[in-house]
């Protein structure tokens, strides 16, 4: 009882505390100088129309590397936590209907294709490596959900994951090597503004991220699924 009162009192107090954040913040009317610099610099120095992408991949590339690492950690951690067993029984698992199974198989390559498109054009259009990766993963998820019996090749997934991560670091290191700055994408030609092969190494990095994210998310979902099924025995 006391606890309940305390909890609600806490929540009310939290509201009171957070209130100034709402009341004292005036809506923006223009960009702050830093944002302005990003917008200007991105077009000038990076030849990347998608400013968010330039920020994500280049200016704040270290964050993104970290972000990739976080995802990587999550898969590794989950893999570390859950010991995958070879013989997963599927007894009692929900068996999808024929339509669903066929439909998912039909949709799968299309989604993959779409995802690939998204991360390849990350520097040009909305979206990027993460978004693309998530799309790819969603394709896998669809597949997994629809086909309970499907076995994903984890070796390949891991391989993609590791290699793309490794290559990402290597690309960063090339920047360090050639231009003296880690994750500098400008060692490749900046190309023509707005074209696919422009903005230095950004598309490459984003592609690697896309692959990696796709593989990782697939892996996570699959790990959880495997464990969950085992649980029902």
């Amino acid at each position, binding site marked *: 009882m006391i*606890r309940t009162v*305390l*909890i609600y009192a*806490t929540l009310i*107090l*939290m509201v009171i*505390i*957070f209130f*100034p*954040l709402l*009341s*004292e*913040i005036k809506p923006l009317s223009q960009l*702050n100088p*830093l*944002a302005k610099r*990003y917008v200007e*610099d991105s077009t000038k*120095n990076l030849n990347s129309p998608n400013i968010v992408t330039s920020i994500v991949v*280049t*200016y*704040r*590339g*270290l*964050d993104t*590397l*970290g*972000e990739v*690492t*976080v995802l*990587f*950690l*999550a898969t*590794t*951690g*989950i893999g*570390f*936590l859950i*010991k995958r067993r070879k013989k997963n029984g599927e007894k009692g698992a929900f068996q999808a209907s024929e339509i669903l199974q066929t439909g998912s198989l039909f949709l799968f390559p299309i989604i993959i294709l779409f995802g690939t498109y998204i991360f390849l054009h990350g520097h040009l259009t909305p979206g990027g490596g993460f978004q693309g990766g998530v799309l790819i993963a969603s394709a896998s998820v669809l597949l997994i959900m629809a086909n309970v019996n499907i076995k994903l090749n984890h070796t390949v997934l*891991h*391989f993609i*994951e*590791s*290699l793309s*991560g*490794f290559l*990402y*670091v*290597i690309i*960063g*290191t090339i*920047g*360090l090597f050639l*231009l003296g*700055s*880690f*994750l*500098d*994408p*400008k060692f490749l030609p900046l190309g023509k503004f707005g074209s696919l092969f422009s903005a230095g190494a950004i598309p490459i990095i984003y592609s690697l991220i896309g692959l990696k994210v796709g593989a990782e998310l697939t892996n996570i979902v699959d790990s959880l699924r495997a464990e969950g099924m085992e649980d029902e025995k």
Partner: protein
Amino acid sequence: MVNPLYMFILFLAFGFLFAILDKMGRKVTLTLFYGVLLANFIIPLYWIWGIFSGTTSGTEISTAGFMAPISINLRFGFEEIIIVLLVNFLGLLSAIYLSDKFKKSSINGMILFMVLLMSIDGLVMTRDIFNIFVFLEILSIATYSLIAIEKNRDSLSAGFKYMLAGGIASAFILIGIIFLYRFTGTLNLDDMIGKSHLLVGKAGFLSLYLFLFAILLELKPFPANGWALDVYQAVNEGLVAIIAVASSAAIFFVLYKFLPLVPSEYYGYLGGVGLVTFFFSNLIGLKQKNPNRLLGYSSIAQMGLLLATLSILKSFGSNDLIIFQIVGGLFINHFLAKAALFWLVGIVKKNDISAWTNLRTNPSLLIFLGVFILALSGLPPFPGFWAKWDFVMILASKGSYFSIIGILLASLFEITYLFRWLGFAMKKTDSTEKIDLPISKEFPIAISAIALLVFSVVTTYFFKEFSFIQILPLVGLVLMYLFGYLPVKVKGFVAIVIISTYAIKLYSLVSGLELFFAAILVVGSLVQIIATMYRSGKREGFYPFLVMMIIAIGNLVIAKTYLSFFFQWELMTIASYFLIMKGKEVTSAGLKYIIFSMGAAYFIMTGFAFAPVIPAINLSLINTIGMKHIGILSLSLLSIGFLIKIGSLGFHVWVPDTYNKADDDTTSYLSSIVSKAGIFGFFLLAVAIVKNASLDTELLLTIIGWIGVMTAIIASIMAAFQENVKKLIAYSSIGQLGYIILALSAFNHIGWLAALNLTLNHMLFKLMIFLAIAGVIMRTKTTNMYEMGGLIKKMPWSYISVLMGIIGLSGVPPLAGFGTKWMLYNALIERGWYLQAGAALFASGIAFLYLFRLIYTVFLGQAKPEHKDIKAAPLWLLIPQYIAIAVVMLISMKPILLLKPLSEMISVYIPTNLGWVGDKLITVNGYWNGSQVMNVTMIIFGIPFLWMLFITRKVQKVKQFNIVFAAERPDRPETTHFAHNMYAHYNKAMGFLVTPKLAIKFWDRVSEWISSSGATLRNFYSGNGQTYLLQIILYFIILYSIMGGK
């Protein structure tokens, strides 16, 4: 210089690759793993070499080819280099420690470990607040995953609680970051600091507060830290070492980076958070039995202390060098010691500290444990000691009384539980259970111990500008350890050689009062070393600490600054503690000793802290201490410290137990030498007072005087009721020291003379008595006096020694004891302390009771049949006794030999009002001719003796049972020996003064109250993850309402 980013690259690249490389076999990955760790240890090492050789001063790294604030930049300055070095060092060691885990479990463990280290390095180096968030999350996630390295329920549930707390923290930090960005328009820390004026209003503060709170939460402030404790308890020790130490260090460093952004008026609150954490964690830790959780409390407390020191120093506006010294000292201390302790716990694998008794079977582990516990307790020569000293000095100069009290009290709590643990580990048992000790696990511990020691010696020697002689106690310790394999006799001889050499060196450095004290302390010790050789076997670990203690005590006398005095004082305490711990069943007595000693030390430290800095003249403290005006507060604190050390009334509870349980020759040292260190301290005080004539010390001195005399009375009564011979002498010791401070506080020439004389006499008499009794105990194998008796026939030499001792102590003429008593009364009357004089006489009357009991029940009366065949005491014990007797006889026959020089020493401080006519000493009130009294006594004793020889015609020497016995013959000696409960009648009359045992009850209550408040407080930690969450959010609200008012 290598770009530090290569560390990240190495970690990450191999982290990503390992999943593939592992297919080639675990050997490959393991080799690469350790290779990477080693390389990443070498890189900062290389940098630090560069910094010390002056080729670099650190660097700023920007990424992505753009300058900050557009891109994320990293800093690799001096602080960063140090921390990264330490973190990677610890990582390497931890990895070695965990090697068997890594060998067996999946490759993911290694990957996670590397990424964890990378994130810590990143946290330290990055200068971008969002990047901080990212690295923090990497750190958290890696930790969450690694926690499950042991897949048991405990670690999983602890991990889940950790995740909940971490989730809240990351939520808060994220809100904080985005609003900080919104206000300042930048994410770069340096940039933001420049724009901190933009953080206005409640919202501005709140955004700062959110960030700050998240960081604080990761530092586990009390009481919002239950989750962390669970993690410390449940998780593999190799990993906890990283979590508790390296991660915390990095987060602490984040706070350090972030602090410039926080308006300085909030530093005080942060300090408060740290202090509260330090205090309560240690308080709760008192009740803890599980070593993991114990260390958890200690870790949290240490982080609290770091936080407190940092923010308090910042709030004082101290310069960076000082902050660096203090915080850095504490930091390194904690960093190396705590990690290694966690590893140690992992090796020993006992869930209760009281089960650690088998550590003796593995001396190396015991030594390590000792080193780390000493370091954590802030004892010299470890860095924590210097830091704590400096910090208290600064606090005192700013008048932060509460902070000082809090920090020192909490430190005392910490010392209590740490030393309780150490005490258990040092306990002697019959258990021969060996600890399984793979080299991979011992290696990291050994390396951190060595690193800690090297660091300590380096700081001590170079940065604190300590001369060789001041670290000589430690040198002696190490030197004697090298002789560890030799038999006792040889080691004793070596010790004598070392101490003699030292004594000769010391002689050239001292004069006046210092010479007197140096002579008493060092020569007295030297003589007693002979006695220590009476044992057979090796007595491992005894001589090193003995030599250390003696040199430290000698160095006390020549210490030139407060710091060096305190340094030597603490060394003495440590050494004597370990000497005491050589005894049997000494666990609780040793704990009492260290707690009270440390309490005393803290009083002394604060006393010095409030004293003015003495001018840096190359003279010892006793010559310089009074040069500046010392305040009454400082004097009182110092007095209390020294009173505790000499065990005066109220603080005496540690003395009897300690003296009783320590080895017999150690007890002799404690009583005759170590207690004199406290007296020397009092002389320092006295000199300080004398040189500040303007100071009104009447009240202080009166109080001390009364304490002295009441100590003498009560201790004497207590002594009279003891059945245990060592306790009896212990109480006697307390009482005698009471006289000394009474004489000293009379504060006139003759009073000081009396005090000096009493000091010398007490040293000699207690040496004689304790060593003689040591011989008796050795032969009879008991300490109960009623189990002895009639030993005069078997051990006549010991008897004579005790006889001289008790005549001296009781102050019966003609021995030197009388002279001191006489001077004492002179001093008291001159001072106008008539009632004190009466009370002192009362005390010396009671002294007869216990002294008679001592000699009668042990040496006279009926001998026990089981002692039929015992031999005289070993020659080794007798030699020092008879040396002392010779000295006593000399100063009794010719007191002028001693008194005149002493009087001259004193007249430097207090002009003499004594007159000398021949051998006669004339004071304001009375006169005394020691030599004449001696001569007359010898004649009036000699003549009846000759007469008796002449007139006794036929004296039949009879035996033990030929006593007047009207009925049957005496049955058994036991029933005929009047010894047990000897002063029952006195107890009926005067027992009401001592039976309430007020002091013992008082301290019992205090400890009971403290530990039960700790026990109550720890109910906060209910174990429920949701409650922890609630606590965190409540803490958030409360801290905000305290801080947010501004």
